[in-house]
């Protein structure tokens, strides 16, 4: 065990030596904030009329290239939050939504599950203050829990979305996170729910029907080639890392297959849950050689916007600064040169070589029935990998300092009873993770690392 651990950690350690402290830890203020670095060096002014738009094929409907993901909304102060009550900061959400609309953003994406189930309602309040023609709204049939998979329960979830969003039609409606045939059949086919949704589309209450995807290549192919329904759009995970390096199916493959069929693509995870906003020093240096004023997030968004069949790029923006930066990136979009594309491909290789745990803090695994704070544990571990402070062997020069920083920081970011050593390995989380992280296995890996540090004090 220790040997394995050593090997692994040594590789990481040397690879990350010198990478660094430049990334300040963003405080977790949102549902879980997408961590970007705010930029002060881009032009201070945020254009209001330069947003790049894409057109829904066969219509003249314009959709802003920047879409607003409503999964990581700002929260009210922790002390004021009450169990079971809406914990989102409505006032701040209104401010963000108003700003987005006035700067040309018109696509808003939510789900009945987001933000402990309060996203739709909050988004509905914010959007209903605007003309219906000023925005398009996307939500999903998020019937993951078995008790919501009956026809009645699913339809009820569908109807509740109208009430929450205060609308009489939904522009974009998605089958939420499909990835495996059996599960797809249970949730949408056998219970007649898909037939119902198709009728709703005919009736005009759903304008476009699509699906979001996290799953196997076989099932992706099945959805495109074998099943009979014509869907209007598909939402996939895409960013410069997943373009070539994604398991089990690359973004490049999915994008190309959809483009061949003229199906517009909605992009999620352009920053890989914030992971691409705080890259290691090698990649950072690569970017800054081109232009030191541009952030990693800028490059990530430009990459996604570069592809013409992309309808919109969703970003879960918690802070005004992130919203402003992303609006700037797409107002207007500059497509990438071949050199720039090659640079991002090299960046992706480096990021893949020193793997963080690919957790995007989406919270789908939570709550863990045994009380673990899974995303917070991964976040702390990733931070240490990212900053190159992996404590390797007790002989190493900065072992003592790194060990102390890791252990104290661990207790600070995750209470003891919610740490990795309490993972029982029940695997209830396994099917919930859209990134297909083997959570129990990673938990045991982190636990072993913590044990190694605790048992080797080096003093």
């Amino acid at each position, binding site marked *: 065990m220790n040997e394995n651990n050593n090997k692994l950690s040594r590789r990481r350690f040397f690879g990350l030596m010198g990478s660094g402290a430049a990334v300040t*830890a963003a405080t977790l203020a949102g*549902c*879980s904030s997408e961590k970007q670095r705010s930029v002060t060096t881009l032009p201070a002014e945020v254009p209001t009329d330069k947003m790049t738009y894409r057109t829904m094929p066969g219509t003249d409907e314009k959709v802003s290239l920047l879409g607003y993901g409503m999964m990581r909304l700002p929260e009210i102060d922790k002390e004021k939050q009450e169990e079971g009550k809406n914990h989102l900061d409505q006032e701040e959400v209104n401010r963000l939504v108003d700003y987005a609309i006035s700067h040309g953003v018109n696509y808003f994406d939510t789900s*009945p*599950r*987001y*933000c*402990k*189930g309060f996203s739709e309602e909050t988004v509905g309040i914010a959007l209903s203050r605007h003309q219906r023609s000023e925005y398009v709204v996307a939500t999903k049939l998020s019937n*993951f*829990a*078995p*008790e*919501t998979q009956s026809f009645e329960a699913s339809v009820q979830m569908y109807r509740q979305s109208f009430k929450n969003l205060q609308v009489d039609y939904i522009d974009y409606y998605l089958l939420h996170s499909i990835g495996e045939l059996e599960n797809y059949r249970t949730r949408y086919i056998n219970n007649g729910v898909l037939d119902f949704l198709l009728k709703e589309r005919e009736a005009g209450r759903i304008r476009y029907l699509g699906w979001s995807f996290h799953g196997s290549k076989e099932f992706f192919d099945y959805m495109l080639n074998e099943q009979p329904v014509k869907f209007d759009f598909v939402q996939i995970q895409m960013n410069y890392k997943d373009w070539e390096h994604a398991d089990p199916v690359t973004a490049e493959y999915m994008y190309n297959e959809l483009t061949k069929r003229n199906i517009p693509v909605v992009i999620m995870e352009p920053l890989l849950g914030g992971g691409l906003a705080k890259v290691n020093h090698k990649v950072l240096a690569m970017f800054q050689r081109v232009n030191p004023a541009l952030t990693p997030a800028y490059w990530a968004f430009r990459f996604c916007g570069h592809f013409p069949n992309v309808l919109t790029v969703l970003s879960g923006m918690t802070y005004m600064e992130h919203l402003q930066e992303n609006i700037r990136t797409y107002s207007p979009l500059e497509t990438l040169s071949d050199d720039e594309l090659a640079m991002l491909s090299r960046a992706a290789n480096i990021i893949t070589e020193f793997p963080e745990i690919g957790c995007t803090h*989406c*919270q*789908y695994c*939570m*709550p*863990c*029935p*045994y*009380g673990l*704070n899974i995303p917070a544990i991964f976040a702390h571990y990733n931070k240490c990998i990212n900053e190159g402070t992996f404590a390797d062997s007790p002989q190493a020069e900065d072992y003592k*300092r790194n060990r*102390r*920083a890791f252990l*104290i*920081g661990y*207790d*600070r970011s995750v209470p*003891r*009873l*919610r740490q990795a*050593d*309490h*993972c*029982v*390995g*029940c*695997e*209830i989380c396994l099917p919930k993770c859209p990134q297909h992280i083997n959570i129990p296995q990673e938990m*045991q890996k982190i*636990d072993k690392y913590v044990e190694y540090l*605790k*048992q*080797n*004090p080096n003093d």
Partner: protein
Amino acid sequence: MLRKIRIVLAAIFFIAITLCFLDFTGTIHAYLGWMTKIQFLPAVLALNVGVVIALVLLTLLFGRVYCSVICPMGVLQDIISGIHNRSKKARARFAFSPAKNVLRYAFLVLFVVLMVAGLAQVASLIAPYSAFGRIASNLLQPVYIGINNYFAAVAEHYDSYAFYHFDTWLKSGISLAVAVATLVVIAVLAWRNGRSYCNTVCPVGTVLGLISRFAIFRPQIDLSKCNGCTLCSRKCKASCIDAKNHKIDYSRCVACMDCVENCAQKAISFRSIIGAKPQHHEACAQDGEKADTGRRTFLTLTSLFALGSAVKAQESKVDGGLAAIAEKKVPTRSHHITPPGSRSHRNIAQHCTACQLCISACPNGVLRPSASLDRLMQPEMSYERGYCRPECNRCSQVCPTGAIRPTDLAEKTAIQIGHAVWIPENCIVNSQGVKCGNCARHCPNGAIKMMPKDENNPESPLFPVVDAARCIGCGACEYVCPSRPFSAIYVEGNSKHQEV
């Protein structure tokens, strides 16, 4: 001058020993731990002959300087009395009183009888060092940790790792109550009469008093210089100077040098009796005030535990949030668990003075004072907040009395202090039908293996099988067990530790 030296030395000892009880990081003890080991009673219990002889010689030479410098309880009383001295009225509030020899020796005899009878936990109520330890551990350490935690929060704000948060909680209501009562009684006695505890109750004081009668260096009154102002007597916190008769009771004198310093005529000096003229003796028939020697008795308090809601492995309909974690409860153990190095229940009961230094030092939240009457306030282990970690042997290093003998890490991992017991009804493999094996994963000795329930089907659910012979009782399994409030695997103590 002598008085100043005494005060400086006393301050050093007092602060150092107090720090030993406050520090939870294990650093201070490496430098200052020896100060707890030269305490008289712990040295006697640890059969630390060298220290005992040295202390006896010290007393034979200079009188009870031990009581004025080394004993933290003595210095604590001086501090309290000193605060009262700040008011002008109280500055010379003492008066000579004759020794209460009956009470004194009764306490000593009672103390010895209780110790020999194996009731150290009762005897230790009046033992000076351990009583001070309980005050420091129960009252001062939580304050110290609180301040530390404040600094930790500030440090966290600035991304510094200079301080870290440390949990503090009420380990034992009884122990806290005893500490508070001791402090109140000591404070009242010291406030009014200075050293009346030391000269009437304290068994160490009485023993050292027997020796200090024959001390070579002692404060002596020069009759040719004395003008009979009795200031020395009024300033003597030990009430041992009979100024009228120019007589000092050296069995009670703690060699504080206050009289030497205060005598305007310079009639009192601290000097050798060798070659000096004998003082003239006269009996004195003065009645002293009755010392408040009453001690409270304590009833067992029921501990309160917050009832958390049980964890349910249910499917959630929304993302995010944290499951409630019910607090773990202490299981009923038929044999309690004592730390590695304590050898047996009998050894710890006989040697422990319940000073709680080990409890203050335990970084894993394992040690706590016992609430059981037969070992009241002596340390015992439980694993709700952590377990006896393999890289730690602090309790064995700090113990001054030999109740927990020094044990190195390799030795420790081979001592069986108890063994794990599985309770099938609580185990989530049975009650919730999920995979687990967390106990087996965390067992440092490989004593727990997950085995299939059905011998012929390796795919059938796995349940933990404990090899008690390889188990050392560290409690890792009990701590990480997801079953709440009672773990599905818990440790039964060994009354006599064994080797694995």
